[in-house]
């Protein structure tokens, strides 16, 4: 049996989900993908909601009632958190792509993670106490 086949290994589309044993950069990438998926799903949900607006005042009012439900508020918070994180990591990716700062990418990640957590807490407090 030949030991030299030089074929690429089979790929597994789901394996990127696994952050175990990897460093913060991989966590950043995984969270970026998850938030991207989340925000995209949210975009479609948002379009559905906007459609409701076009159905007249009763449809809109009943939607507003629904929107006060804590589950929906939580969902909206998740969207906000996702947007904050995705935007900030986007800045990290932009910085390290357009300037030679990739050697400090971990430090940049810790900073954006801190800002994201603080920002999320502020929004959480405001959204749940409004």
């Amino acid at each position, binding site marked *: *049996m030949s030991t*030299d086949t030089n074929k690429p290994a089979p790929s597994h589309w789901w394996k990127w989900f696994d952050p175990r044993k990897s460093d913060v950069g991989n966590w950043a990438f995984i969270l970026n993908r998850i938030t991207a998926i989340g925000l995209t799903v949210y975009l479609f949900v948002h379009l559905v909601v906007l459609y409701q607006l076009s159905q007249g005042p009763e449809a809109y009012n009943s939607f507003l009632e629904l929107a006060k439900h804590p589950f929906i508020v939580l969902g909206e918070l998740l969207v906000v958190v996702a947007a904050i994180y995705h935007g900030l990591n986007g800045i990290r990716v932009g910085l390290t792509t357009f300037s030679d700062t990739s050697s400090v990418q971990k430090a940049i990640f810790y900073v954006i993670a801190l800002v994201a957590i603080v920002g999320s807490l502020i929004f959480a407090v405001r959204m749940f106490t409004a």
Partner: protein
Amino acid sequence: MKKPHVIIIGAGFTGAATAHDLALRGLDVTVVERGALVSGTSGRTHGLLHCGGRYCVKDQESAIECIEENLILRKIVPQVIEPNGGLFVALDESDVEYSKGWLEGCEACEIPYKPLTPQQTLEIEPYINPDLKIAYEVPDGTFDPLRIAMAFAATAKSNGAKFKLYTEVTELVIDNSGRVTGLKVWDRVTDERSELYADMVVNATGAWAGMIAEMAGANVPVIPTPGVMVAYDERFVNRAINRLCKPSDGDIVLPQRRMVVVGTTSFEVDDMDYIPVIEDQVELMLDRGSALIPGIRDVKERGVYMATRPLIGSGLTGRSAARTFKCFDHKESDGIDGFVTITGGKATTLRRMAEKTSDIVCQKLDIEMECKTAETPLISYRQYHAL
């Protein structure tokens, strides 16, 4: 007419270079290796492309071989060589005393040298011990231990040779007339056993040559002689740095990637499948290495390993045994036909060892093909994986 099939046991430097030489001469070659490429002694070579200066006093035959092969390898396989030259550095009066005989040796072996004052030396290699007395620049070089063999193997493959790695020889097949006709192998990848047949079997297992030869009832006087190498985490020099003294422990410091490697020692063993690291020898390398390059004391150790040279026994041991190689035609020495052993030697002379071995193999198989490896540039080592 079917091409004669030669099986080479061992994919170290000798096996890979012999596969290339025989394949270039048009023979059908299969290399059988129990591990990975150069996973025995060859991979652990210090990596010095000798100019011969180390041997020009006591072993001029080796020295001349070295300088000749040095120039050939620079031509045929520059892709793996750092051709930045070397220095022989005298640190004290006894070194300076030795230099007299050394210079005569260089003249006798036609090894080019250029004397340098301490100031001139420090200008080109600022990290050498500033207390040096005198230095000589010589055409040493350093090479990548895996990729030099890969280049030979790739070129051999391009001429039809096959490499069966992770395939261990368990027995030689010998017919009624006492001729080796093949071997039994254990494929360690699939855990299967099978037999391979050949018109000639070449034992290129270096330090293990005696062990393999025994399988045929032949005797090859190889003395496995390990030594230590220590790598430090800083590339202090671009040249090979040799202590200008008679060959002894730790008298060579080489650059390799972003490290320097200090070597080596010399002692005998019986079992060479695994040699444990000896702490005292590591300490000795630190002392000897930092005598040449004081900065070594301040950097981290990056790696330590033992490598087992195959020295040909002749009553002498260790440093005084000749570093030349020998090819044994077992029909002459033991009455066993179809079997040839090549062992001894050093990395720098791999191509020549292959030439002599291939000459004998072709002569025994009645093939009149000249060796062309000295003029044939090797293909890119990466092609090993394409073929």
